[in-house]
């Protein structure tokens, strides 16, 4: 996918701003530029922040939290300047780091209560909400057990509970499905979806797994090498990404050329199949006729949603982790 659509679409976003950045730049002392003049707005809802590992997602989240100071540029979250009024802002933010961050020698109920209090909740409210949140994430019966004895999936749910216990306006998640088995991933994604819809809390979820993100997000922000690649509602991604996939026996290159002559942009994928961009309309007849004229045999003809990676120019899916939206 070309990058010519990138610039225009940020203005598409609604005027209600959950987060807005202007020329946000972060350079690490070693000379690495993690964010490079990032200007964007994110509106309330569930937003996916996608990009390859090292694209600057974690850095961006940490700057939102005021954990890192930007080298230059500005960032406003929930209408509050993140660098100037960090503690005040963080009362209304929940955060799940991508790594383990739980003390093993405390029961989940105690820990989540403690985190509620460190977020500014009074003692009684902290205790009540901790129990409630552990129920929401499905750990109510296990809440008095020490966290050290929990499975990875349970720990991930404790992390979610501590991030939601103070009823934040915005939840920030960094690779929330890391290290989870398929069932755990499904559960986690469902919890994230419920947080956005039922709980009415805005979510920004950073991930390199586009297929997962697509299941739960209303919006996508793609960054690469610290630069904004694209920001748009997920619907616009999927609408544009409809493909017709054709497999043929015969001279594929000539077939593609013939399709081009009929006004159907097509290209040969690495796996040998031919992908045809569908821009509305129904080109099935045209494809059939062209195949007959070119003397190639049609093996397969079907619609497919574009892999999001293709649009971002990222390398194609490496295989069988089952998380990519595909044919």
């Amino acid at each position, binding site marked *: 996918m070309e990058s010519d659509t990138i610039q225009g679409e940020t203005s598409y976003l609604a005027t209600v701003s959950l987060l807005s950045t202007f020329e946000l730049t972060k350079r690490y002392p070693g000379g690495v530029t993690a964010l490079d003049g990032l200007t964007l707005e994110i509106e309330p809802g569930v937003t996916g922040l996608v990009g390859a590992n090292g694209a600057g997602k974690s850095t961006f989240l940490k700057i939102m939290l005021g954990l890192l100071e930007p080298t230059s540029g500005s960032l406003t979250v929930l209408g509050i300047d993140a660098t100037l009024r960090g503690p005040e802002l963080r009362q209304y933010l929940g955060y799940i780091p991508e790594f383990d*961050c739980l003390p093993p020698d405390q029961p989940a109920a105690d820990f989540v209560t403690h985190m509620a209090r460190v977020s500014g909740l009074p003692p009684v409210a902290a205790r009540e909400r901790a129990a409630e949140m552990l129920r929401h994430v499905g750990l109510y019966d296990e809440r008095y057990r020490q966290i050290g004895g929990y499975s990875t999936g349970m720990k991930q749910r404790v992390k979610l509970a501590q991030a939601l216990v103070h009823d934040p306006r915005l939840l920030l998640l960094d690779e929330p499905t890391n290290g989870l088995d398929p069932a755990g991933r499904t559960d986690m994604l469902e919890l994230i979806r419920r947080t956005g819809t039922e709980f009415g809390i805005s979510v920004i979820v950073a991930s390199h797994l586009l297929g997962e993100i697509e299941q739960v997000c209303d919006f996508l922000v793609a960054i690469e090498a610290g630069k904004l690649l694209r920001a748009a509602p997920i619907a616009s991604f999927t609408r544009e990404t409809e493909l017709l996939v054709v497999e043929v026996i015969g001279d594929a290159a000539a077939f593609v050329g013939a399709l081009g002559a009929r006004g159907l942009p097509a290209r040969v994928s690495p796996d040998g199949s031919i992908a045809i961009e569908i821009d509305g309309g129904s080109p099935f007849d045209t494809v059939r006729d062209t195949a007959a004229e070119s003397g190639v045999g049609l093996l397969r003809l079907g619609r497919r949603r574009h892999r999001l990676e293709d649009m971002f120019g990222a390398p194609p899916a490496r295989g069988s982790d089952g998380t990519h939206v595909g044919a």
Partner: protein
Amino acid sequence: MVRMSALDARAGAIYDIGYQHYDGKRLGRAGAVRALYAHGLRTVFGLGRGVRAKIAPVALVAFVIVPAVIQAALAGLLGGGQIQLFTHEGYFRTTVWIFGLFCAFQTPELVTGDQQHRVLALYFSRALRRPDYVLARVGALTTALFIVGLLPHIVLMFGQYFSAADTLKAMKDSVPQLPRIVAAALVIAVLLSMVSLAIASVIRRRPFATAAILGALMVASAFVTPLVITRPDKMRYLVLASPLMVGDGVTTWIFDTTKVRAPVDSAFFAPVAPPPAHADSATMARHRAEVRRRSRGRERMTVIQIANLPGSLYLGTTALLLIVSAGVLTLRYRHIET
């Protein structure tokens, strides 16, 4: 808050009543720091943790208090004024090594786990700033040491009051001691907590943090003491290398400014001139008597007296240790990766 209608309750099932928003008070940064401080204070004593976490703090607190209880009990049994195992000043000196152990075992509980398990990432993304975390941790350990430091002295005092023939007079007599006890307990608490936390903050693993604090507090004083005692003329400044001895020096000074210095002139600490090569037996006897006199003299003195340094030097060293520790803590937590 779980609310159920009568119908739901009768059905006896757990209903998902949906997510409830929180509309109550938010206490902000002050509330967050208070919570972290209170949690730290509990952690130092192993409260809210398993039984194993309570062994060390409970044992050490018992070690600190038991001698005072024994003295109070003996005084009660045998009548006031008869028994005085410890003065307040002496009690600080005798028990200060227990505070060293307490710091070595409990300081890592307070800060090392937060680094090792990366809980700091969660704290720093809460309603506080990084220096607030340091302040809450220093406050927690200092408070703990201060409480443990005061407890035996309260026991000692009540032992005196109740065993004295004239309780009121005993109370009145003890009043001048009170500010000294509080001041000494406070200095030791602040000094040891700052030094221990500064050391623990830069070490990633718990056993190493404990070992480093043991080294800085216990081993240092174990090395320094014999050196100072045997060669006070040359080695006396070494007392300043041990935070425990510095604390001892300040405590001594607080209780009696004159006791910081030796009760003899400095010539006393110089090596005794060797007898001439062919000395007669009377000269030899005088020489041996002089050596014995000096060694007995030293036995009656504290290490602080033998070092014979001015009180201002202990106060200055304390200030220096506090400044360095505060610097280490500030820089460490400003730059720590979360």
